[in-house]
């Protein structure tokens, strides 16, 4: 355990999962077209894309449920082998369990199919049941559980093995807001413990809160991939918002110079809000250097676009 508590700032970001030029064609359409992704160790990796883009297909290839038509996959540097299924946990989008099996029995069965010994599985299960406060369900049949309860159980069966790679397909779908929050918290905490996580979603808010890396897939192709911060920076429009106290002798044009264009200027009581866009290269902090002697600064902010905007922007014009 200690060795795995590395967090996502691991020294050399080793690639846990490498997908290399994967193609997959179904009867009439190409589900994946030359898709490659690299998932670094400890990353919480968001797989984004509109419905039907090929996310689920990619996930099923990663979990070895289906095979690609061509292309290669590597797990920790070695070609992905059938035995690796035990090291990958998977929560599919459409969830379901044996309705007639009892809760504990069901969880043990799935855990043992993942290669856990019975004793280990029982011990871990106990911890998770305590954590989710569901010990009283143990002998209930799955069919008697509410949908949300069953989903929690399924989440437990996915993570109980403590696999090195966790794959969630739309993990927040089907959970009510409270349970979705619990699941999100668990995902973040698993990520902090060093588990590498891939999850697909089109819920952009959850991406911003949880992901360290993302890949955007649109129309069977990968559009963009990388650390989330880097992608946001790349899509930054180089605009800054500057708010300062109004002063009679302060002229925004004096700080803009040739390098910045003033997009808007708004006066609100004693505050002056200016939005500037950088036009020419200049050293960082240029704007602040100029404004500080001239006016009393209340706030300064680089305007970074939300994932939602990036997503929409990229899927419209890749």
């Amino acid at each position, binding site marked *: 355990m200690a060795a795995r508590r590395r967090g996502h700032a691991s020294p050399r970001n080793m690639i846990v999962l490498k997908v290399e030029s994967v193609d997959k064609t*179904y*009867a009439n359409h190409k589900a994946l077209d030359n898709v490659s992704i690299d998932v670094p160790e400890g990353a919480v990796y968001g797989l984004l894309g509109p419905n039907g883009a090929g996310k689920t297909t990619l996930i*099923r290839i990663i*979990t*070895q*449920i*289906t*095979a*690609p*038509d061509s292309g290669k996959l590597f797990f920790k540097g070695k070609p992905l082998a*059938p035995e690796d*299924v*035990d090291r*990958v946990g*998977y*929560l*599919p989008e*459409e*969830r*379901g*369990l*044996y*309705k*007639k*099996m009892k809760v504990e029995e069901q969880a043990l*069965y*799935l855990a*043992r*199919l*993942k*290669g856990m010994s019975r004793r280990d599985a029982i011990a871990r299960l106990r911890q998770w049941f305590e954590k989710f406060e569901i010990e009283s369900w143990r002998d209930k049949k799955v069919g008697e559980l509410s949908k949300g309860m069953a989903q929690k159980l*399924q989440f437990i*069966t*996915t993570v109980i093995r403590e696999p090195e790679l966790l794959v969630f397909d739309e993990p927040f779908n089907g959970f009510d807001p409270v349970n979705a929050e619990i699941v999100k918290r668990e995902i973040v905490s698993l990520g902090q413990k060093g588990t590498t996580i891939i999850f697909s979603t089109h819920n952009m808010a959850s991406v911003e809160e949880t992901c360290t890396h993302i890949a955007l897939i649109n129309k069977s192709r990968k559009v963009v991939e990388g650390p989330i911060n880097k992608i946001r920076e790349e899509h930054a429009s180089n605009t800054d918002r500057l708010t300062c106290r109004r002063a009679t002798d302060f002229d925004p044009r004096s700080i803009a110079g040739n390098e910045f264009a003033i997009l808007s200027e708004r006066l609100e009581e004693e505050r002056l809000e200016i939005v500037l866009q950088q036009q020419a290269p200049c050293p960082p902090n240029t704007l602040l250097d100029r404004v500080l002697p001239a006016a009393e600064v209340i706030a300064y902010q680089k305007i970074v676009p939300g994932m939602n905007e990036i997503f929409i922007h990229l899927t419209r014009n890749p």
Partner: protein
Amino acid sequence: MNKTFIVIHREFSSRVRKKSFLFVTLLVPLLLLACYAIPFWMLVRSDSRERVFLVVNESAIEAPLGNLRDARSVYVDSLPEASRAAILARKDYYAIVRVPENVMNAPEIFVYTLSQLPIELKEELAAGLRMKIERMKRDEVIARAGLPDIERQLEATRTPVNVRSFVVSGGSAAADGVPEAGSGREGSSEVSFVIGMLGAMIIFMFIIIFASRVMRGVIEEKTSRVIEVIVSSVRPFQFLLGKIIGIVAVGLLQFFIWIAFALLLFFFATSLLPTLDLAGLSPDLRQGASAAVLDVFAKLDPSFIFSFIALFIFYFLGGYFLYGSIFAAVGSACDSETDSQQFVLPFNFLLMIAFYIGIAAAKNPETSLAFWSSIIPLTSPIVMIARFPFGVSAWEVALSMTLLVVAFLFFAWLSGKIYRVGILMHGKKTTWRELYKWIKYKG
């Protein structure tokens, strides 16, 4: 492989622990037993109550009612009409029968009872008297014709023919040219027929029942969506194998319980039978019955019994695995059991045909239809078992077995491909054409 065992264990234990398992396992033999025991019990029971008829014989015929099966008769010459009710009320006699004086010419008798006379007794009384009168009339005719010996002579013309069939063991006897009488094993077509047909019937039923169970299991996993998690942990082929084995293990367990039950009953019955006084069966008949049973066993070569059992198990499992894998593929392509009909129908039809050919083959195993369908894998498990008791040459059995194994491997591979794709397809109705496309997908 370890994972396959986990799957087998779940499939087995989840079914065995169901209440319906206990129910069926106990209920089926009880029902079967009841089917035979109730009529037998009724037969024995009717003997337990002895009825005595008081027969007022006014005719010249001696003992006009003859021997009655269910009753005894006490004859008197006359009885005052008034005392009838009083006599019956004492319950010493069940009925009073009056045989009138001119019964020969006007065959009519009168029966007085406290309650309605049962039809059975009525018929028995009529039959007894009829035989008596007919015999007397016939004797008269024979006497008048002056042929005192005719009856015995006619009796002597009856000629029962006994066909004793022998199965000549292949090489040596054929070389001798003429098989001597008594060489080779004396066969019994009747025994072969019964064994062959029973075997075919059991295999047919087990395949239908258990292959459908496989299909239902697959559909259940697909519709409940649990399958996607499972195939992310176990390879589909391993999983399917575990499922098919687990389900048949349940069936075999049930089967063995029934066999044990039957054996127990058999020993119980045989130890009890001699002490049982079967009034309905004459000692002759009883001896004849046990002799017939012994004869059946005598006509069964022990090596035949052994090879038949071995073959039965092989074809039972072979057929089940073949159809089980097909039905699993069908289940994977369907969203519900009702959807499955279009795909299952041809195979159920095939099984039915095989069953009917099997029955026909048990009557005449030498038709070319019986031959070919005992070679072709989809029908061979049923038809070969029906044919085998009549003697099938080794090469035919070997060919049929080999083809069955090859067919199983082929269908398992094919079904595996369909299964991998099918279990993840939801919502749209599958067509045969799509199934064909799935086979070509890279799994």
